[in-house]
């Protein structure tokens, strides 16, 4: 599985400049108030906040399904309102919670919707469709001829992602894309999407109401509060370590220290070398510190052995070593790393 055609072209930077959306009543749900932030090309920026805080409104102003009352949204340095709205939308991927697959088109036809609107010749459309289905983990032979009603919720969501990637957009807008599937399927979709994103490196604006999803998916997080104001903007670790206000602290939850531990893995720690020790817990490099701490507490053990990629002992992990990982606030996980 490779990114193929999708991997070749780039991502676009995105910037909100004092963007507002007012509805008749100043306390109306979905209003947005003087929103400004920048997302570098290739980063996932998550808009998170309670319902009615204007996060979906903000997302829909990017592809102009909603027009801002004030301010500018710059895509690759160009104001989105200066571009023809149809052209703009066709080069921005769009994924929504209910997926919005066309029930009367097959999976293959759904994926090829934008290429078909753009007049791609049939052979190129078909090749691209198969490539994309493979990319999201659906066997083209098996799936391209099916209708949406013959798919599970998770499969529909994969098709939705494939469809949004069809013409290799430099920006993807994803509005609660994994919220409608069960927790186990959601976790898998999130993991697969992050793996895909490491190859594709698209710029992504991602809306969720779920803090844990925001922390997991985001390189950057914009926490929004009622009234459509930006409460805080930063890396997941910054927001967990230094909430800017009482609202943010409450919103991210009392376990924010533990949440920070889930941002770091055993492999990230610098450790004293150790010999193999019998009877101690062992940790794979990919184990999250949060899970490692839990294992140590349950095992009533002060320490465990970190393994390297080959499964050899790499170092001695203590509860103190895990706690010290919280001393440093990490600006960003992947962007520029």
């Amino acid at each position, binding site marked *: 599985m490779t990114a193929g055609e999708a991997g070749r072209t780039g991502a676009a930077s995105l910037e909100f400049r004092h963007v507002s959306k007012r509805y008749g009543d100043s306390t109306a749900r979905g209003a947005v108030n003087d929103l400004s932030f920048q997302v570098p090309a290739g980063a996932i920026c998550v808009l998170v906040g309670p319902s009615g805080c204007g996060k979906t409104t903000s997302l829909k102003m990017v592809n102009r*399904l909603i027009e801002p009352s004030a301010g500018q949204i710059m895509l690759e340095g160009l104001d989105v309102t200066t571009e023809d709205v149809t052209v703009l*939308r066709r080069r921005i991927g769009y994924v929504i919670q209910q997926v919005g697959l066309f029930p*009367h088109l097959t999976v293959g036809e759904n994926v090829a919707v934008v290429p078909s*609107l753009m007049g791609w010749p049939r052979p190129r459309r078909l090749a691209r469709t198969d490539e994309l289905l493979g990319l999201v983990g659906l066997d083209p032979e098996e799936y391209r001829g099916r209708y949406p009603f013959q798919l599970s919720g998770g499969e529909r969501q994969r098709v939705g992602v494939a469809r949004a990637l069809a013409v290799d957009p430099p920006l993807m807008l994803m509005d609660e894309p994994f919220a409608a599937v069960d927790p186990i399927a959601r976790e898998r979709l999130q993991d697969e999407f992050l793996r895909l994103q490491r190859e594709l490196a698209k710029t992504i604006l991602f809306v969720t109401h779920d803090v844990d999803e925001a922390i997991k998916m985001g390189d950057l997080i914009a926490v929004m509060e009622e009234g459509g104001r930006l409460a805080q903007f930063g890396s997941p670790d910054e927001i967990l370590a230094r909430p800017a206000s009482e609202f943010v602290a409450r919103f991210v939850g009392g376990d924010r220290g533990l949440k920070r531990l889930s941002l770091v893995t055993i492999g990230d720690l610098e450790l004293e070398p150790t010999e193999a020790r019998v009877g101690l817990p062992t940790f794979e490099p990919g184990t999250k510190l949060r899970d490692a701490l839990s294992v140590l507490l349950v095992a009533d053990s002060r320490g465990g052995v970190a393994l390297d990629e080959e499964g050899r002992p790499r170092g001695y992990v203590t509860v103190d070593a895990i706690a010290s990982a919280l001393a440093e606030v990490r600006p960003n996980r992947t962007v520029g790393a």
Partner: protein
Amino acid sequence: MTGEPLVRWDWVYGHLGAIADRVGQHLYLAAIAIAAGFVISFALAAISIRRRRLYPIVTLLATSAYTIPSFALFAGLVAITGLTTVTAEVPLIMYTIVLYVPNIVAGFDSVPLDVLDAADGMGYTRGERWWRVELPLAVPLVVAGLRLASVSTIGLVTVSAILGDSFGGLGYYILDGYERHFTTEILVGGLLSIALAVIADLGFVLLGRVLTPWAIPRVGPRAARQRVSG
């Protein structure tokens, strides 16, 4: 009716050619009304969808027209348009509207909002969205309207027999049999009219299946098969 058999088959065999002609006339009168009614209703439905305030008015007018007894309408129109095909068609067309419009409007209303949101977000123009998304998704309910209108119209064509021998299709035999107390004619006219309605209905069911292979099968062997393969 003394000792006479219920159906005089010798009469039937002696009139096969004439019966075929009446079937042809019946279908002709019905087809014009079904088609013209569809076109008019589609326009009324389109207006109703775009201007929601007009929908109750359209419905009220269509329902009012439906309350006029067909017998009275045919008879009354003779004074205006004479004994012409127009006189036969106007009531038939009027009666289809109340059957078509709610189905067509419901068909377009049935298009899920998330599908429209996705279509807009992916850059469909208004026209592309209408042709490629809304119209195809409205088809199941539009076909339901066609089924109702065709069954109703095929039955009503018989009433136009009161306009004279040149009208009525199979209704001619019903009226003539009634006047002559000849049961065979009434049965031939009535049963064949029912048969035409059933055939038309089945035809539209088939058309619907062909046009909407994507529809979720609800009952029957098709449903079971799809579930297994899906």
